[in-house]
């Protein structure tokens, strides 16, 4: 069971989200005049936010384990008839990790964006949106109740919309932005019903009373309903099956956006939501199983899609979906600390790879197709080394961060007797190493396959310095977990409850299996794509039509279009153009026509002028009133 934490007031929490908000507004209105300073100010705002966050977390850690909860009440947001929602912030172990990732990695991505967006004349707008995103993301994780969380939740959706469609003169970008917002809002709608159910059951949306009273108030079934409604929101935001379709298209946004929003932070909000609500999921039990099943299915599904992509960013997009699936696997097994460790590690290596991909795209003058690349390691050495560190980390090569995260997860599966999860997780790990190896080789090894690749150049220091810092982080983050009494679990366990370990294969054995799987997968990719003994194109041809199907996400998108989107559009057209215009309005006009015909005899009355009608009505009213007056 979870112990109750003693809370203390923290008066600086509001500063953390407000800094990026303030600069966002500045850039929104006068960004154009700020020129280059727009990006500098935006980066400084997030960096300052990071500094305050570090100080706040340090203060939190200096307290005894049972008192690591800081809260701040800003003002009453909604207060109607005894139902009150405050603009309340809360910092605990869970939100601490999130804000460090958001502001830390966020600051690096802002820094990178200064260089990346240097030649875009609308960069003021860009940084305004990017800062606004950081604000909403911080509200999402700092909120002390579900409504502030929902504010952040919808807000990041808004910024995601604005940034995916940033280059909106190209209609496909705008389409992708709209698709992302609407698809995630399907989940959000169910989540909103979940919030209504919480209000119905608890009369509040504050975390503390809800989680405190939940075991006595909620039946198993009620908890299942609420948990699944919340999870629906998480499925949308974190692009899990069956709402995964928006994320690959979201790559239409500028690459720093993909790194920040669609890899490191926003898409992990679903994981955060479920962990934050773990009390409800645990009462249900069934809901955790659903989370686990969706996680496994998504991890495998997206990994198969990633193998077949030709666009470097779409590999990373499917890879992100798959990795988020992993995080939900951990959550579904109640291994919250593992999920959070995975989340942090992933934020580092995926942001690193996205920014690396951005550097590649920059160097290739906008080309994203890996078939046009090759041999870039010679001309882009820094990008290559850092990107490779990210890829190897995710593939699970020790001692990089990803290895520990994935290994911890598979260990939990094995040690809690979930052999199927362990097996499928290992299979997905094999596929992961495969598509990463393929991407690495196609991009950086072999001979240049196009003019652009021939003449590619290394990016400026402004772009590769963030890469180097992130790469160092990827290497360093693993160390956190090396120590079993590391800060992470000590931070989270009092909040979330420790995991019971039933025992199983020893850590070393599991690690050896995992590393062997990764190395074998990488070796196979080298054999296919790097050794020159096999023609990759012929290999792909032999895999048809599976390869093309996987490249198109197994046609889920197209199926949705046929089954849902087109019929819904037809239905809307029927409703608007036939039902409303002909049937309902037709009835109204019909009645009017009848009256007209009935009055046709009395043409004298039917003068057709509204003022006559008005006069008649007025006279009628006077007459009736007069009649009443006489009677009284």
């Amino acid at each position, binding site marked *: 069971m979870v112990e109750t934490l003693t809370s203390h007031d923290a008066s600086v929490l509001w500063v953390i989200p407000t800094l990026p908000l303030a600069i966002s507004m500045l850039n929104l209105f006068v960004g154009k005049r700020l020129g280059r300073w727009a990006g500098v100010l935006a980066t400084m705002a997030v960096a300052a936010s990071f500094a305050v966050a570090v100080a706040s977390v340090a203060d939190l850690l200096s307290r005894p384990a049972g008192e690591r909860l800081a809260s701040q009440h800003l*003002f*009453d*947001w*909604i*207060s*109607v*008839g*005894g*139902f009150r929602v405050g*603009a309340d912030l809360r910092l605990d172990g869970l939100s601490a990790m999130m804000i460090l990732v958001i502001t830390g990695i966020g600051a690096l991505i802002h820094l990178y964006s200064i260089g990346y967006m240097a030649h875009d004349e609308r960069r003021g*707008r860009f940084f305004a949106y990017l800062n606004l995103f950081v604000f909403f993301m911080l509200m999402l994780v700092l909120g002390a109740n579900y*409504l502030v969380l*929902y*504010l952040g939740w*919808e*807000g990041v959706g*808004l910024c995601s*919309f604005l940034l995916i469609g940033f280059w*909106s*003169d190209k*209609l496909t970008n*705008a389409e992708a932005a*709209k698709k992302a917002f*609407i698809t995630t*809002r*399907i989940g*959000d*709608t169910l989540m*909103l*019903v979940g919030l*209504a*159910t919480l*209000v*119905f*059951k*608890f*009369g*509040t949306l504050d975390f503390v*009373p809800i989680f405190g*009273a939940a075991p006595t*108030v909620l*039946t198993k079934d*009620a908890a299942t309903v609420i948990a699944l409604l919340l999870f629906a929101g998480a499925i949308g935001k974190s692009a899990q099956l069956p709402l995964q379709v928006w994320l690959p298209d979201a790559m239409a946004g500028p690459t720093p956006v993909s790194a920040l929003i669609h890899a490191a932070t926003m898409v992990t909000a679903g994981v955060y939501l479920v962990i934050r609500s773990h009390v409800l999921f645990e009462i249900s039990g069934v809901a955790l199983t659903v989370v686990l099943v969706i996680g496994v299915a998504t991890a495998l599904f997206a990994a198969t899609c990633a193998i077949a992509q030709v666009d470097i960013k779409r590999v990373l997009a499917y890879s992100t979906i798959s990795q988020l699936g992993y995080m939900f696997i951990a959550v579904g097994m109640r291994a919250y600390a593992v999920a959070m460790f995975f989340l942090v590690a992933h934020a580092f290596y995926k942001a690193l790879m996205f920014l690396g991909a951005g550097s590649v795209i920059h160097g290739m003058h906008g080309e994203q197709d890996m078939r046009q690349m090759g041999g870039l390691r010679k001309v882009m050495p820094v990008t290559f080394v850092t990107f490779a560190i990210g890829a190897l980390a995710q593939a699970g090569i020790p001692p990089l961060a990803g290895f520990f995260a994935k290994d911890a997860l598979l260990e939990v599966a094995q040690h809690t007797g979930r052999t199927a999860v362990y097996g499928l997780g290992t299979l997905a790990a094999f596929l992961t190493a495969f598509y990463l190896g393929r991407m690495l080789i196609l991009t950086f090894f072999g001979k240049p396959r196009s003019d652009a690749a021939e003449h590619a150049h290394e990016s400026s220091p402004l772009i590769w310095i963030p890469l180097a810092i992130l790469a160092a982080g990827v290497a360093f983050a693993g160390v956190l977990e090396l120590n079993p009494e590391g800060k992470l679990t000590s931070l989270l366990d009092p909040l979330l409850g420790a995991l019971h370990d039933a025992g199983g294969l020893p850590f070393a054995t599991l690690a050896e299996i995992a590393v062997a799987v990764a190395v074998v997968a990488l070796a196979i990719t080298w054999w296919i794509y790097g050794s020159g003994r096999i023609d990759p194109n012929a290999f792909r041809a032999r895999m048809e039509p599976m390869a093309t199907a996987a490249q198109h996400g197994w046609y889920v998108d197209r199926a949705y279009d046929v089954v849902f989107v087109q019929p819904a*559009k037809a*239905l*809307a057209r029927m*409703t*608007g153009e036939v039902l409303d215009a002909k049937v309902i*309005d037709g009835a109204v006009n019909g009645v*009017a026509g009848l009256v007209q015909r009935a009055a046709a005899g009395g043409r004298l009355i039917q003068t057709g002028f*509204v003022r006559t*009608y*008005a006069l008649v*009505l007025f006279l009628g*009213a006077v007459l009736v*009133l007069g009649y*009443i*007056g006489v*009677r*009284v």
Partner: protein
Amino acid sequence: MSGHVLSAVIFLPLLGVLGLVIGGRQITDAGARWITLLVTLVTFSVSLAMLGRFTAADPGYQLIEQASWVPGIGLQYLIGVDGISLWLVLLTTFLFPISVLASWTVTANVRRYMVAMLVLETAVLGSFLALDLILFFIFFEAILVPMYLLIGGWGGERRVHAALKFFLYTMAGSAFLLVAIIFLYAKAGGGTFDVRTLADTAATLPLATARWLFLGFLVAFAVKVPLFPLHTWLPDAHTEAPTAASVLLAGVLLKVGAYGLIRFNMALFPEASKHFATPIMVLAAIGIVYGAVCAISQRDVKRLVAYSSVSHLGFVVLGLFAFTQQAVSGSVLQMVNHGLATGALFLLVGMLYERTHTRQLDEMGGLASVMPWLLGFFLFAVFASAGLPGLNSFVGEFLVIIGTFAISHWLGVAASIAVVLSAIYLLWSYQRVAYGAVRDEHRGLADVSAREVVVLAPVLALLLVFGVYPKMLTSAIDPATARVIEHVAPDHPTTVVTGVEVADEGSRG
């Protein structure tokens, strides 16, 4: 003026009319504009004085002014304000100067146009403040004439058809209202049209009579709201109306209907209000989804916003008849918020029309790159209307949803569907206006002018302010709605009760 602040608010615009009429042809177009703007601004500042004298904690009518008018039949000049009408009055006085300023581009018959605007303001304000049924009816009917003239005189191509439809449809509804008022007066007697007194005496009516009378009132107000399926006059009227008329139609006129429901139907016929609550709520929920679905398929941007109003006003009616504190207060809040958000949308659509001369979504596109500020403001209003938390509409809708959910889970869920539907029609239409390739004839269009910024800025600012701090409004709304609920459904769970007690009730609904 000190004791007559409400009368001053109502009749100041009429004073302006007097000036415009007396001045006659000597007044230039520019003069007429400035006079009207000044009058509406003064009216607004007087209404702020009203706000200053208002006691938020007092649930009853305040600043009452009472005078005998036609003693023979007990007709009185009786006006007063409570926490419900307070914000509707302020919304009205706030939107009028903005609408006048937005009408700067009207060039035909300016003086007459401004006269119609000012008469309309008096009529609307009178409707919100009258506490005597006949006085209310006179104001209520008086709204029709200037609105009819505005649509018919300064509207689009099919303005005559739309104006006539608007007039006759609403008038047909009013006929029921008038008959019901007179019948009520004759039956419940007391020789007065004072709503406060009638609220008590109407309780002595036989149930069946009260229910029939309720329906009479309902038809008149349901047309005005408009409640599905009585809404088809609205898209026509909006499409043809000039910008300011659209703003005022959506912003305040529709609220007169919803206001009538809470002020008169519920006060006079509490039993019938409860009796008919379920079918009305079902119609409202259908309207929420139906209006949104119709909006998706529209090609004319004004029709689209009109249908979105049908959907949003469905929230208002749904919440009113749920009779929980959150739902009813949320409804009143939603009335104000919809007025602002939809008002902003119509202002922006009007500005787009003045530049592109089209309302067809297919004939726009790429305008964000031509007029970044205008389209930026438009996007802000779009997201406010789509119920983005932090902006105003969200709060009202959320309160209605949770307040309705406590009564009926299914109706609460049905209302929630609008969350995703509104995102579809609003973003889709925005995309068609703003994104993609620019048409050649739209290159070089001017971005917002200083005048337009002055028009938009106050409205857009309030979209944010009321989204972040709705308590400004609800602290006055809450006591008044609590009184209504107490009157209609004293046994209802007026608040969402906390904890275990509610868990036992879980099977309800």
